[in-house]
């Protein structure tokens, strides 16, 4: 029952908020709804074993409304459930025109995301995959920055082409299943012949690679992150990119194991290329949002590479890092939003000495930024350590090249901190004040998560262990 409620609560409250008249209460209603989802997802985390829900949906097509919440799904639904209240609370002061539509669409996005993470029926999965996209399209196009329409449309077309190719792949595998069903287990046991595996792999992987995004499908991402309203950017980079990674682990790995094995080197090289490429571009950025966007591409690239090295330690690292990357990147976006709202600029060449004016913000931001560099004692260190370990077992040279990105990450992150918070105070920074209480609270909570997960990551490893071992048991 919990998996169903996890989808229904945001879906129904989203529709309700969407139809309400604009008023301050929509904001609170959205926050309450997202908190209810958080409580439910925590309940799921503390329940032992996988949770399921199953109901008839399309009998003629062999598709059922079936949900499965195993370790990985629990972890990702927890991430989704944490992100939304955090985002709502951190941007509580932002005023949106037609706020009911804004919060309604946000909650619908949450429903779509949770559906993607919970669906264990391929057609249902595809439905939620699209349901998560449509509201985001409207959110970015209505409330985004200056170039929003063109940028968002590019984002939409990219992902839509990917989705359609995935649909063809779904149809093909469906035709090959023994019992003509979209159920996850039927897909796992479709036993596709070798050449067909290659084609299916390509159809699915393009869809997932666009969503992650993996080099060379990443070009929509920096523009989209920059132009979207910050609340949406947080969701896009914190949670939505995990859809691609999740889908690879959930669907691609067990469905076409031979093709995954055959293409592993190719994908790992693509991912590592993307990591280095994105890190180099990040160094040259002068805009906080674009820097975070490019650094995000680098981190996602590492996760993708660690999946395709196909060893247990790498996959464990991916599981932890999916959660931690979400927490860290949302923290970074919150600070970026605070700076932009207060000072009206995101260029760090126009900033300096902010630490004197806002010391609390500076401390919290530095911790988040160090987590982004994966310093020991922060959460990202554990994940990256495991992933690099997996990468090293796969191929030492690849691991060595990928390792350069750690150094590059330190370069661009520290450079940004230095330019924004330290150095000489410039004219723009003079008007800065300390951040408001609710942002301090939200950031403090995130920092606590960062530190706790950095010191004691074992619960997260335990939580996702069943998914990891199931994947390696099938081989």
């Amino acid at each position, binding site marked *: 029952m919990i998996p169903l409620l996890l989808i229904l609560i945001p879906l129904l409250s989203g529709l309700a908020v969407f139809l309400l008249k604009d008023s301050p209460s929509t904001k609170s209603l959205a926050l309450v709804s997202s908190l209810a989802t958080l409580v439910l997802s925590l309940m799921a985390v503390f329940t032992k074993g996988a949770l399921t829900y199953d109901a008839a949906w399309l009998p003629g097509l062999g598709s059922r409304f079936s949900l499965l919440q195993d370790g990985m799904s629990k972890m990702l639904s927890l991430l989704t459930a944490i992100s939304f209240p955090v985002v709502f609370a951190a941007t509580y002061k932002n005023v949106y025109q037609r706020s009911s539509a804004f919060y309604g669409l946000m909650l619908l996005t949450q429903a779509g995301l949770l559906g993607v993470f919970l669906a264990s029926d391929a057609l249902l999965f595809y439905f939620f995959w699209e349901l998560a996209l*449509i509201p985001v399209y409207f959110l970015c196009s209505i409330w985004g920055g200056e170039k*929003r329409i063109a940028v968002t449309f590019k984002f939409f077309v990219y992902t839509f082409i990917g989705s*359609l190719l995935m649909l063809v792949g779904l149809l*093909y595998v469906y035709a090959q299943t023994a019992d003509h069903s979209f159920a996850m287990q039927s897909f796992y046991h479709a036993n596709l012949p070798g050449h067909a595996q290659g084609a299916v792999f390509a159809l699915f992987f393009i869809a997932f690679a666009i969503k992650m995004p993996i080099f060379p499908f990443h070009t929509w991402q920096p523009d989209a992150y920059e132009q979207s309203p910050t609340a949406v950017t947080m969701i896009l980079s914190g949670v939505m990119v995990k859809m691609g990674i999740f889908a690879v682990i959930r669907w691609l790995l067990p469905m076409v194991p031979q093709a995954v094995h055959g293409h592993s080197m190719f994908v790992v090289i693509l991912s590592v290329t993307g990591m280095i490429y994105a890190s180099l571009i990040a160094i040259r950025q002068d805009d906080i949002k674009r820097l975070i966007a490019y650094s995000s591409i680098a981190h996602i690239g590492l996760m993708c590479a660690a999946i395709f090295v196909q060893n247990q330690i790498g996959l464990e690292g991916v599981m932890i890092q999916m959660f931690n990357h979400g927490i860290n990147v949302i923290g970074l976006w919150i600070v970026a939003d605070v700076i932009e709202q207060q000072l009206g600029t995101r260029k760090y060449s126009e900033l300096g000495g902010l630490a004197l004016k806002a010391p609390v913000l500076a401390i919290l931001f530095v911790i988040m930024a160090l987590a982004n560099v994966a310093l020991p004692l922060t959460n990202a260190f554990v994940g990256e350590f495991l992933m690099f370990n997996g990468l090293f077992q796969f191929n030492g040279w690849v691991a060595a090249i990928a390792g350069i990105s750690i150094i590059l990450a330190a370069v661009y992150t520290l450079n940004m901190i230095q330019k924004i918070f330290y150095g000489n105070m410039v004219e723009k920074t003079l008007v800065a004040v300390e951040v408001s209480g609710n942002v301090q609270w939200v950031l403090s909570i995130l920092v606590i998560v960062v530190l706790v997960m950095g010191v004691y990551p074992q619960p997260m490893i335990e939580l996702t262990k069943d998914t990891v071992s199931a994947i390696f048991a099938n081989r």
Partner: protein
Amino acid sequence: MNAIIVSALLGVVMMFSGILLKNKSSLKYIAIGGLLVLLIANLFQTYGVYTIVVNSHDLLRFQKFGLFFNSIAITATMIYVILSGKDIENVGNYPAEYFALIFFVLCGVSILCGFNSLLMLFLGIEILSIPLYILTGADKRNLKSNEASLKYFLMGAFTAGIMLMGIALIYGATGSFGITSPVFINTPTPGSAPKASFLEIAGVLLLFVAMCFKVSAAPFHFWTPDVYDGAPSVFTSFMATVVKAAGFFAFIRLMEGQSAILGPTWKILLSFVIIATLLIGNITAVFQQSVKRMLAYSSIAQAGFMLFALYSFNDVAKEGILLYASAYSLATIGIFAVLIKLKDYTLDGFNGLAKTEPVLALTATICLLSLSGIPLTAGFFAKYYMLASVVKTGSGLWLVIVAVLFAAVSVYYYFRVIQAMYFREGVSETTEITSGFKTGLIFVAALIVLIGVLPSLLLNYFYF
């Protein structure tokens, strides 16, 4: 049989009600009542409650598939009249005749749903087309409407000639008009490859060309944009939906047996037509500034998808064409109903519609999402079934991928309208909009979403 007789009678009733009634606005309600009677008559036959018995000497043969399709066509017409009835009255001075002609078109549709002989096919197509030539020219003081009507008539007459030539050749070769007669299929022994004479092949090809013209498949689509653009918008809506779907139904029924004559050439020929249709429809639609003209090209593009049913000819395809016809008709009727209310048919005319008329914008958006095949709308399952039917045949995966890429192109021009409505500044001017109209639109949008979530609701009736 019921629907043929009742629709013809209702057409006559509508004509006379124009003379007897002074009040113009009551015509719409008579028409809606008539359509309801027609629907019930057709359902009576579908479920074997009561059927008017006429010995047609096997020229007509009614099956559940055809009757069910007919019900969809009648229901779509009913929704169309409910939404746009007022606009039909306002086209010209003879509203009663317009409604009468619509009933005659439905008579043609009913024949096409049950024809078993090439003669009946020809009759059905002509009964369907002639009222349309008149409706296209209904706005008789408008030069464009006249031009469209003449163009449509000349091209239609020419196609009728081609079709008759094809029928004559087939009759010459086989000595039969029946589409399911064993002579026609011409299989020497069951299971072996069919053998056909040159005359027969030529005849089937001519029929194929004529039907391609009727459903505006490329390269026989040239009349479509001009006619759709020139005709009064209300009638374009009708032509692009009910009439086109009926054409497709006849096409499938005709070719299901006949395509065997062409052997493997059939799929090659059809692949060419499908790709040409998708290419021309989608690419040309991208460059249109007028939304009405864009919808004309989009109807060509959608025809490309419907042609998949002819490629696969399996159960999935049959269910698919029912779903496609419903989904496409609903969405197109909805979007046209909104378009008619606007004063400016260009994309700029849609600017800022979300602010001035939020209900219209939202329902139009759902219709456009359905046309582009986004999940949670009926259009998704329509496309899904078409693609699935081809995948099921085991060949033609490349064709599916091509189609899917064109579906992505279609998103571009459908979303431009959404962008105009929601994201661009402007004051979109509309004619007066009643709350009844809004309710109707919301109903259509809800139906689209309902079929999009549970397509089995619609298809279950098929298996009753």
